[in-house]
């Protein structure tokens, strides 16, 4: 018991944190794009599941990890197109169409899993890549610089997403469409096209989030593999105030709590596991409560746009 807070345990907790944060980062950064354009995509978890399956099955058959990643991205894109069609073109209530997308992804992924794989198998996923020099730094090296490529990708995505949203014309258009679609429309911005793009980009990233689970971190697929991680990713977007840096903070906070509870269980610290597993969800509700009034959400979030409607 006395060595619970030893250096080895703390660095173990932090290493696990970095892994756990990876799928949240991809999915939540993707959702940040969709929501910045005014579309809530609640189907992230369904996209992650179907893409995780696609990536896993591709790797199982071909052994090619990059092909697996591509399969996940393509499935994500298709799901994104479906979501855009229903939510942007047909202007559905987004909370409901997202649940439909989730149910579809969950059902189809377990259907395909049962018919094509059947039992839980494992694949050889993306191996850890040690970054020269940086990987040799004591303590920090193993935590940050000896991860697999998808993990590095997730953390690199944060500044890239920030740059796109804050420093490019495309980012301005996305945010304009999310804040005031009527004004954006009168400036000649094609609202629907920008929203299609943002939702699909988000869905592709959700697909990569799923792949990061099935072919980089866990290297397996089973029924409901994500266990609701996509929904937490959506919550992280609110928590992060629609900013990639905020999302990074939320993902790390959430993952460190989760990692801590996992390690406490491994070390046999006597907390009932049910309460420990509940902790992240309670934390999410608390985080939503604390952060809800801090940042203004995109003004047109969850509002379909129709020309001529004020």
């Amino acid at each position, binding site marked *: 018991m006395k060595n619970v807070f030893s250096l080895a345990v703390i660095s173990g907790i932090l290493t696990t944190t970095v892994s756990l944060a990876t799928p949240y980062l991809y999915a939540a950064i993707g959702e940040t794009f969709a929501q910045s354009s005014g579309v809530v995509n609640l189907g992230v978890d369904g996209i992650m599941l179907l893409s995780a399956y696609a990536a896993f099955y591709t790797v199982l058959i071909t052994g090619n990890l990059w092909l697996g990643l591509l399969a996940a991205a393509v499935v994500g894109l298709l799901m994104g197109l479906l979501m855009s069609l229903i939510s942007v073109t*047909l202007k559905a*209530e987004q909370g409901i169409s997202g649940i439909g997308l989730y149910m*579809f992804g969950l059902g189809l992924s377990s259907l395909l899993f049962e018919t094509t794989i059947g039992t839980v198998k494992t694949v050889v996923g993306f191996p850890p890549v040690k970054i020269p020099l940086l990987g040799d730094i004591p303590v920090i090296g193993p935590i940050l610089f000896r991860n697999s490529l998808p993990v590095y990708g997730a953390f690199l995505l944060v500044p890239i997403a920030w740059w796109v949203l804050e420093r490019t014309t495309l980012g301005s258009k996305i945010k304009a469409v999310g804040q005031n679609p009527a004004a954006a429309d009168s400036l000649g911005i094609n609202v629907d096209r920008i929203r299609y793009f943002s939702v699909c980009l988000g869905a592709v990233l959700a697909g990569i989030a799923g792949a990061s689970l099935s072919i980089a971190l866990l290297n397996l697929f089973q029924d409901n593999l994500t266990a*609701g991680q996509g*929904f937490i990713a959506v919550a992280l977007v*609110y928590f992060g105030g629609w900013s990639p840096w905020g999302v990074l903070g939320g993902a790390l906070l959430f993952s460190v709590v989760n990692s801590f509870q996992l390690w406490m269980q491994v070390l046999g610290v006597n907390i009932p596991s049910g309460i420990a597993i*509940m902790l992240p969800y309670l934390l999410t509700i608390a985080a939503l409560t604390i952060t809800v009034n801090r940042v203004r959400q995109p003004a047109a979030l969850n509002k379909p746009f129709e020309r001529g409607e004020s």
Partner: protein
Amino acid sequence: MRPNKTASSEQSSKRPVIDWTSIAMNVLLPVGGVVIALLIGVVMLVFLKADPVAAYAALIDGAVGSTFGLTQTLVKATPLLLVGLGICIAFRASVINIGGEGQIMAGAMMATWFPLTFHTWPGWLLIPATLVMGFLAGAAWGFIPGILKARLRVNEILSTIMMNSIAQQLMNLLLQGPLMDPAGIAAKTFLPQSAELPHQVWLPILVPTTLLHAGAILAVVLAVLVYLFLWRTTIGYRIRAVGLNPEAARYSGINVPFHQALAMTLAGGFAGLAGVVEVIGVQHRLLEGLTSGYGFTGIVAALLGGLHPLGLIPASILFGGLLVGGNTMQQAVQVPSALVGALLGLVVLFVSGSALYQRRWAAQRKTTEQREEGVKA
């Protein structure tokens, strides 16, 4: 503006009480959504190398082909109807309740603990008491996201999803500890299920040799009551006003946050009742996987029923039939029952997507009517 207003009010008084075209429109579009989903199901079955005709024949046969199948359909429809009633109330107030699963579990946990604790009470007292307690447990589970939305503007979609996960963990915790069947502990099987409930709390069976229980009647009675509540009481009117236009409701002096929290609490209560009915009507104990996704399927049924308590009755029977028939199909043509889950997801997508055409049609009819009135004037 003023003459127009009187004209339209005259028009509305002339309109028949039952508006058949409107009902047809509200029925046809969602049913169209179901048909499209089933057609996509055909494609999926072909990909799975199963005979679509045999598969759908098995589905229909399983759902309505025998007395037992038919009663099973009603057994599955009962919790869907109860959850759906809550969804109707919440969605009518513009509160998106995704927390059905957690609220069902809250009701189910209460419906297990309460009769096991008060097992000496006679049935005539224990059954109503359990129903009330389960309703309250579900209501409490809905109240938390409701009050968080009302007071602190916390997004209810996310908080209800988190409440689902918390209920799930709480139930696992109870089934591995305090509520675990003592017989299972004695026999060292340690199955994650509770002891069997005292027999006097079991709901009476309506049709001998089937599993159809009195909960089905309760659900239908409640559907009528919810209809009267929403359309014939002041609170119901206010809940709908809040949903139609929160700004207008606020200006007319309606306490919007209060009615949203109330709607969410009631929604939780009805989902809680679904959990009670599953426990004391079907399983007679608490066990893992008890909710069977009713919390989500109930949303589908409510949407398909046009968010109307009476429309919900046929809609929940339809989905009860799909669930029962899905199992038969699985056995008949060796297709995983997850297919039904995927198809239900498509139904939600298409039904939510068809709402646009419903709105456009309503708007078009309004302008035509106004134009006709103008011609008359």
